[in-house]
Structure formats: structure tokens, C-alpha cells
């Protein structure tokens, strides 16, 4: 079950009513029950079995790790159960997510959100290993942490320390929190129904038969895809965070105005933040601080000097991170290419860092302000869209072919001669889509500014004039209703009449 299904809109109020009606101490268990019901709708009994397997193994392993730690066991002994449990659960992840490519029939066993909850529970396990937390004694509470329904199928990937207290506190209704929650939910549906679902139409039309279109139309589609993906993902996250807020759980943000990034590195700190943070904390540092990479570092420092030598192990770890990130999205040549490109570009920026610094000082193009900032933002945006070719194309070959077309057969005329009208959206729908994207960018711009000023977006919004808030809310609701609720169901009568 996804957030956009009508079923969810029935499920959510029912779940919330049960939650608030339960006594305080029972509430976490109500949440667990609701999460299991949600997951049953989403993936069936089999999915419930799989996630239970993860929950049980992680629970037992964490307790064991805690016991081993208390008894001051040597590192080698402590590593074994950790490695075993991680291997098991990542093995399950690999099995259900990727084996579909090797054994087609298995691919049909869809375990929704397995990537998310596997990473989330792995993080918990590694934190237990590192002694950062006390292993949970109550298996039901751990189960709730792993399967908490708002974040189960789409994230954000939370740390135990971030949400455990709120999750188990059984917070009651709070008007302020509810306002924040409902606003985020409304905004999330706006992003999903008005931007993502509509942008998908021309994107799919072009990407699935890119050979029929000139480079300009392809570039347009990939650009639109960038917005579609952002709106779809951030929209879902917004709904997730909003629902969490309603029950008093503050989940970490997953997006921080990614299109305002000044560099690719900056971008990955603003996009899918929790995955990046997870990879940084559990993969990158583990690798970078590991013995093998340490030895490599000594070798390279001796061979290439201090600067370069230091960067090589760092870039190995970086590549590892981006490859895992890419594979997380899917196992194919194009996602590998995507990961390698990202890793490569970021590594390059690491190497050329000092050079850019000198250039900036000479040209006085300060990346922090004015023209320099705009240039950096635009450059990063173009780079991100370029990388999206690999993310969205149907295969690596298609991506390269699409790029070739974009560069060599641009045909800008196609943008004005009505081709865009054949992609499945009417002029009115394009206009609405454009307006909605502008609204999204405006909101992000305000939020970005708020960050600079040290305040936060929500409080800025809350302090705006009531009339403006009212109009904005009404406009957003109207768009959600028109584009989402009423999307289907319109058949021009002449088509029906024709059959009579």
C-alpha cells in the first residue's frame, strides 16, 4: 500500500484514532499493530514473515553483542555475531531485491521497503556493536522501531537514538505538533499528486521511445524527471514525516533543498540525507578507519606525497559509498555507471579542490555569494541533470544514446513545434505543472534562506500573514483535489456516445 492509494486514506485515520484512544502505555503497541496491518496490506503475509525474521535475528544478535561487550570479550569474538547477522539480513535484501535479475521468478516476491528497514536495523545493530546504545530488551519495541509504518516503505532511515524515545513515549495529541504534521502531509500530497504524477507522463513517453525525439526533447524530459523524482520522493517523505509528527515522533529530514546545492558533494548532503548519513557513518568511516585502507594510505603517501597520498584511500572509500548508493537503487550497468560517475566526479573535485580554491581567489568568484553562488548552483544543477540520464534511462546503452542525441542532435525547434503536446499532457496541465514546480522552488528558496538566517522554514511560514496562509493553503488544497482526487473519471461524452 502506498500513501497515494485511497486505502491508505482510510487506514490512517483509523490507525490514528486507535492510537489516541489507547492508554499512554499501550500506544507503542497500537503503533506496532498498525504497522503490521499496514505492512500486511503492502506486502502480504510473506513480507510479514521476512521482516519478522529480520526483527528476531537483529533482536537476538543485539542482545548477544551487548552481553559480549559487557563481558569485555575480544573484538574478534564480538565481530562474529555482527557479521553473521548482517550477512543474513543483507543476504535477504540481496535475494529479494536483486536476484530477480538472475532468477526471474524470485523477482516477483516483492518485499516492500526491504532496503529501508534492512539498513535501519543494520544501523541499530552496528550501534549496538559499537556500544552506542543499550540493546532493546522488549522485542516488540524493537519490532516497532524496525517496522514503524510511516517510514517503512520510503524512509527516512532513522537512528535508534533519533526516534526511540518518542516512539515509545506514547505522546498524545498536541495541537502544535498536529499542525506541523498535517501541513507536511498536505505538502507531501501536493508534491506527489500535482507534480510527480503529472511530470511522469511526458517523461515516460519520451524515455521509453527516446529514438523518436530530438536531443532537446530528451533533455527536457530528463530535466522534468529531476523534478518528478524530487517531488515523488520528497513528497512521500513529507507525508511520512508528517504522520510521524502526528504521533509525536520527529523523524530526520531527508531533503534539504537539493537544487540549491553549490557542488556535487553538497548535493549529496542535501539529497536522501539519511541514506548518505548512514553510508557515511557505517560504511565510509568504517572503511576509511579500517586497517587495509590505513595500510594503503601509508603506501600511497610514501609513493605520491602527502596530499595525493591522503586522498587515494579517501577516494576508494568514496567510490565504495557511491557504488553501494547506486546499487541500493538497483543492480544494473546503468546504476553502476551512475555510482561510478558520482564517485568519480566527487573524487575529481577532491583532487582539484586546491586548484579551484586558487582559481576562486584569483577571479574573486567567491562560491559563497552573488554571481559565484549562482554559477555554482547552476553548474551543480546541470551536473545533477546530466547524471540523471543514467538514473532514468532504461539501460546504460540507452543512457549513452540519449546523451549522444542531446549533444549531437539537439533540434531545439522541437520544443516549440507542438511535439511537447503529443507527450500526454495538455497545455493547461503543463501550465499547472510549471506553476507547481515554481511553488516548490519558491518554498525551497525560502527554506534555504531560513537556514542561512538560522531560523526554520515552518516558523517562517507560521508567522506569515493569515490571509496569505489561507490563500496558499486553499490553492494547494484545490490543486490536490483537482489533480489528484479528480484525476481519473473524466471521459468526454462523445467517446461514450459513439458506442451507442
Amino acid at each position, binding site marked *: 500500500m502506498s500513501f497515494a492509494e485511497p486505502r491508505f486514506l482510510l487506514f490512517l485515520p483509523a490507525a490514528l484514532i486507535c492510537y489516541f484512544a489507547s492508554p499512554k502505555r499501550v500506544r507503542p503497541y497500537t503503533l506496532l499493530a498498525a504497522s503490521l496491518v499496514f505492512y500486511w496490506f503492502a506486502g502480504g503475509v510473506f513480507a510479514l514473515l521476512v521482516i519478522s525474521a529480520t526483527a528476531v535475528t537483529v533482536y537476538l544478535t543485539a542482545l548477544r553483542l551487548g552481553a559480549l561487550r559487557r563481558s569485555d570479550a575480544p573484538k574478534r569474538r564480538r565481530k562474529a555475531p555482527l557479521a553473521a547477522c548482517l550477512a543474513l539480513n543483507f543476504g535477504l535484501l540481496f535475494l529479494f531485491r536483486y536476484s530477480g535479475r538472475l532468477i526471474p521468478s524470485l523477482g516477483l516476491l516483492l518485499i516492500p521497503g526491504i532496503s529501508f528497514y534492512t539498513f535501519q536495523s543494520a544501523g541499530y545493530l552496528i550501534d549496538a556493536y559499537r556500544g552506542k546504545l543499550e540493546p532493546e530488551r522488549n522485542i516488540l519495541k524493537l519490532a516497532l522501531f524496525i517496522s514503524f509504518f510511516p517510514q517503512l516503505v520510503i524512509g527516512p532511515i532513522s537512528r535508534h537514538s533519533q526516534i526511540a524515545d518518542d516512539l515509545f513515549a506514547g505522546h498524545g495529541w498536541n*495541537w*502544535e505538533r498536529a*499542525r506541523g504534521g498535517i501541513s507536511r502531509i498536505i505538502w507531501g500530497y501536493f508534491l506527489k499528486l500535482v507534480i510527480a504524477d503529472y511530470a511522469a507522463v511526458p517523461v515516460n513517453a519520451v524515455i521509453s521511445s527516446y529514438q523518436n525525439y530530438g536531443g532537446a526533447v530528451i533533455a527536457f524530459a530528463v530535466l522534468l524527471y529531476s523534478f518528478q523524482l524530487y517531488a515523488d520522493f520528497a513528497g512521500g517523505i513529507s507525508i511520512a514525516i508528517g504522520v510521524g509528527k502526528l504521533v509525536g515522533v520527529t523523524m530526520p529530514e531527508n531533503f534539504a533543498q537539493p537544487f540549491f546545492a553549490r557542488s556535487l558533494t553538497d548535493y549529496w548532503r542535501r539529497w536522501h540525507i539519511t541514506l548518505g548519513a548512514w553510508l557515511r557513518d557505517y560504511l565510509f568511516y568504517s572503511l576509511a578507519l579500517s586497517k587495509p585502507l590505513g595500510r594503503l594510505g601509508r603506501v600511497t603517501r610514501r609513493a605520491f606525497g602527502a596530499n595525493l597520498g591522503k586522498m587515494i584511500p579517501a577516494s576508494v572509500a568514496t567510490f565504495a559509498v557511491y557504488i553501494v548508493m547506486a546499487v541500493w537503487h538497483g543492480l544494473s550497468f546503468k546504476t553502476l555507471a551512475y555510482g561510478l560517475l558520482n564517485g568519480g566526479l566527487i573524487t575529481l573535485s577532491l583532487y582539484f579542490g586546491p586548484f579551484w580554491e586558487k582559481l576562486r581567489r584569483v577571479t574573486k568568484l567567491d562560491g559563497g555569494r552573488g554571481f559565484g553562488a549562482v554559477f555554482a548552483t547552476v553548474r551543480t544543477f546541470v551536473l545533477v541533470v546530466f547524471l540523471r540520464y543514467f538514473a532514468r534511462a532504461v539501460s546504460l546503452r540507452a543512457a549513452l544514446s540519449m546523451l549522444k542525441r542531446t549533444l549531437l542532435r539537439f533540434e531545439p525547434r522541437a520544443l516549440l513545434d507542438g511535439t511537447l503536446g503529443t507527450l500526454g499532457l495538455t497545455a493547461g496541465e503543463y501550465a499547472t505543472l510549471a506553476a507547481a514546480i515554481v511553488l516548490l522552488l519558491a518554498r525551497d528558496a525560502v527554506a534555504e534562506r531560513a537556514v542561512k538566517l538560522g531560523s526554520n522554514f515552518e516558523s517562517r511560514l507560521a508567522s506569515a500573514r493569515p490571509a496569505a*496562509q489561507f490563500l496558499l493553503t486553499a490553492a494547494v*488544497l*484545490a490543486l490536490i483535489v483537482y489533480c489528484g482526487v*479528480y484525476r481519473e*473519471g473524466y471521459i468526454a*461524452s*462523445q467517446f461514450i456516445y459513439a458506442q451507442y
Partner: protein
Amino acid sequence: MTAKRWFLMLAAAALLVAAAVAGLNILADPFGVFGDRLLGWYAYDMTQNPKAAKVAYIDAHSGEYDAFILGASGSASFSPEKLNEYTGLRWYNAFNYGADMAYTEKLAEYLAGSCEVRQFFLALSLTAAQKYEMPQNGAIEWRPPQLGGAGGWFRFAFANPRFSFAKLRDYRANGYLQEPFDVFVPETGVYDKSSRDVEPIGSLDAYLAAYPEFTTKIGVVAELTRTDECMASVARLKAMCDARGIGLTVVVPPLLDRSLSAYRAEDLADFFAKLGEITPYYDYTRFIPSDPRFYYDTTHFRNCAGDMILADIYGDDGVYVPSGETEETELRVLLYHSVTESGGEDSVSAADFRRDMERLRDGGYTPVGLSDIAGYVYRGAELPERAVLIRLDDGYRDNYEVAYPILREFGYKAVIFAIGVSVGRDVYKDTDAPITPHFTAEEAREMTGSGLIEIQSHTYDMHMVAELDGADCRRGLLRLDGESEADYAAALTGDFLRSRSELEAATGQPVYALAYPYGLHDKLSEVVLGKLGVTATFSSEYGVNTLVRGLPQSLLCLKLWAFG
């Protein structure tokens, strides 16, 4: 803003959005459910949802009708005007496309309860025994609130606002002619067939080429699976009529053989047997020729066929009904303009004209008059085998001086199409430019008095000449650039009415035919002339015409023939 106040604001915003949606739907009213007070475009509403819109329309005019035609598309071609004539009641055609007998029964009950109904006319198609209590696929099939449609008014108020936007958009694009979004005539409830009823029809091959759907194969056998439920509804309807003293006429409408043969014989026998147990009925399934030309498409027979059925029920002998097979014949039309003693660049010489008449006689051709061919089509009169219509355009005096004596000599009939503004003139309108002289009204009366010549319309002043009319010049009787459709319709109407009244005053003969100046015509002009009662038109295309008994469209855009 405090949180609680924010929630109030949210509720207010949500209410605003709901009110906007409902407000738009109620004001634009694409289904006519709310009375369509703003735009009053009932034809559109009925096209979107005939069930809801017709009930609303009838309710709004409840005192005006006391008899209703019921059924599905098979009832569309029965004319309330004809029924008014035959029965003296005030009829409305309340058919709905896609209606099944379950709905028709409910509708009849509703009408009987809300109006003083004296009679129902039910056209029961065989499809009523195939579909019963059909699911409602979307807003265009929602039942009217008055008939207990689920969700009632609320559902229509919160229908997809795209329907309302589409209506507003179509309103701006609406033209004079019937379009796919307004297919009804609201005042009578029938389909607006003004365009289809003026399409020229000739041979069967030509018609099939234009409408290939008549030749596609029907692969499946049509099953009459809901006969019992259908007949139960009919029985209840009959009982209700009997109880309330409402007359009920039940008719099974015509079908093409290809459609009829898709049913199993036993199913058909069962259908009619069960129907016969409930009520007397008329079986018109094979009444008209199984000829696609009598149908608009594979399921809808023409208005003229509906008229034939009504004439049969009510004993009107003035309407011709072909028996069984199509009765058709060929007609050739010879065109002349000026006929002078010596001939010349623009005229035929008397000698040549005489020779043409001899060739007709020797070739076994028989010239006939306009009223002869009209009689063939409308009254089933006889026409000779190789009928030829001699046509003289413009109304030149030489027709009277040269052609008319020759025709009299041979005893041949002819039709002259006279340009109204030039009758009796030898200069062009109010200029001094000389033109070939035209005959006068007295000369016209003399010719028509002989019984050989009929004089019909070549428009009053829509046969303009570019060199003489300059910037005001029309191309034939077509619309001027930039002239609105409504203005054009008025202009053409005015012109034809003047032409007709002056010619009728001059000759004492009815004027019901028109030859298109320069052979130019289009759909809009055809529809306008059709509404004015023009039943025969002549073009300048070449070909042999096919006249069909009982098919008025076979008299339209008659083509020219040249001696081989």
C-alpha cells in the same frame, strides 16, 4: 497564528475548495441536473447525460407534455411532431441512449407521477433483452437524483470539475451546426440529425464506401440473456399504465438483416412470444428495406423510416412505405444555360438543342419533370425507365424564345432555375452593365401554365459576378470570409425566402428546389436550406443519380450528365 486557529483556517480553506467545486458544477451544470440556469445549453447537457438532463428538462416544462416516447436509441427516430399531428397530444421523446428496460420502467413511473401522462410509446429494441440494470460507468451514466440515483444531488455537485470546464470551453467553440457535444434537440428530445438528414445519398456502393461500418462482419452470436427480466419490466409498465389509464403503444423497431441474423431464431421467437403474452405490439423488425441507406449507422434507422412506421400505425396514406426491397431507379440530368438561334461561345444553338432532343428520343430516354421525380421519392409514383431531367440555369429569355418552343414540339418537360434578382432584366442589378436578357414574370407564368416547365430557385441574389460585384462578391451562395455562421444563416434564409415568394407569386407553383450557383455548396448551406423546406438540390458534379423511393436524401445534390 496559534495551532488551533490554524486548524480553523485549514477547515475554512477546505470548505472554500469544496464550495468552489460545487459552485462551478452547479453553475456550469454540464449534466443539466441543476436546471442549467446560467447557460441554458440543454442540448449539451443531454449529450453528456441524457438521463439526468432530460428528467430535469421535463420537470422544468412539466405542464407542456402529456405523452412520452420511451426506450433507448431505437426510439430516437420517432418524431414527436408527427405524433402530435396524429394523436393531438403533446409528445416528448424521452429516450436515452444506453437505457435498459429497468431504467425505462423507473422513468415511466416517475413521469406518470409527475406529469399528467395520457400515452406512452415504447420502442423495445432487442438489446433490451441483452442488457439489464447496466452498471454506471462514470458521471455520464449516473442516474438522475429524482429517480433515486445513488448520491443524488451531492454526487453531481461534486462530479469531476473537468466536465464543467469542458462545457465552458465547448460553449465558446459552439457553432451553428450540430457537433459531437450537442447531439440533441432539447425541445423534442430527439437527436439533432440536421446534418445527416441533408446528406446527398445515391447508390448503395457509394453509401457503403462512405460508411464502411455496414460491411464489417459481426463475428459473434448475440445472446438474449435477459429476456425474462426485460419482460418483467414491460409487464410492470403495462400494469402501471392500465391502472392509471395511460395508453401504451409497444413497437419493436427495425433492424438490418445483418444485425437480425446475429440473433438465434429460438431466442427471437421466445422474445416475441413473451412480449405477446404481456401486451399487443407492432413488430417492425423487417418493415423497412434492409438497406443501409435507410440507416444513419448500424443501429439507428433514419428519421424518414421512423415517419414511415408512425404513418403505418396511424393510417396515414400520405407517407410512402417501400415494401420489402429497396425500390430505386436512375436519373440523368442535362444542363443548359442559354439557347440561342445561332449559338455562340456561351450558348447552345437551337439546332444543337434540337439535335440533343432527337438523341434523347432516339436513345429511349424520357424527359421528366421535377414533380415527377419528387413524386417518385415521396409518393412512390412511377418513373419511366431511362428518365432524364432537362435543367436550364439562370432564367434567360432565350429559354422562353428558343428552347421552350422546341420542348413544346417534343412534348418534353424541363426545369428552369431562375436567378431572382435578374427576372425580366437585361442589365446587372442596379448597374448599367448589360447582361444576357432574362425572361419576365409573365413569360414565366406562360411557360409554367403549359404544364411542361417548372421554374425553381437559383437563389435571389447569390449568383454574383466578381467583375461586377467587386468586394461584396460571394462565391456562389457560400459564406463570406469573416461572416459569422449566424449572420450567414440569416442571409441565406432571407435570400431564399425572397426567391421563393417572388417565383411562387409569378408562377403559382410551389418552389422547393434549388440549383447551387456555380455548383458551390457546403454543409452549412445544406443544413440551412434543409430547414427552409428545400427538398431537391442540384450541383455541378458529374454522375448518374440514383433515386430511392421513400428516401428524401436521394433528391439532394443531383449530378449532371453529359451525352456520352
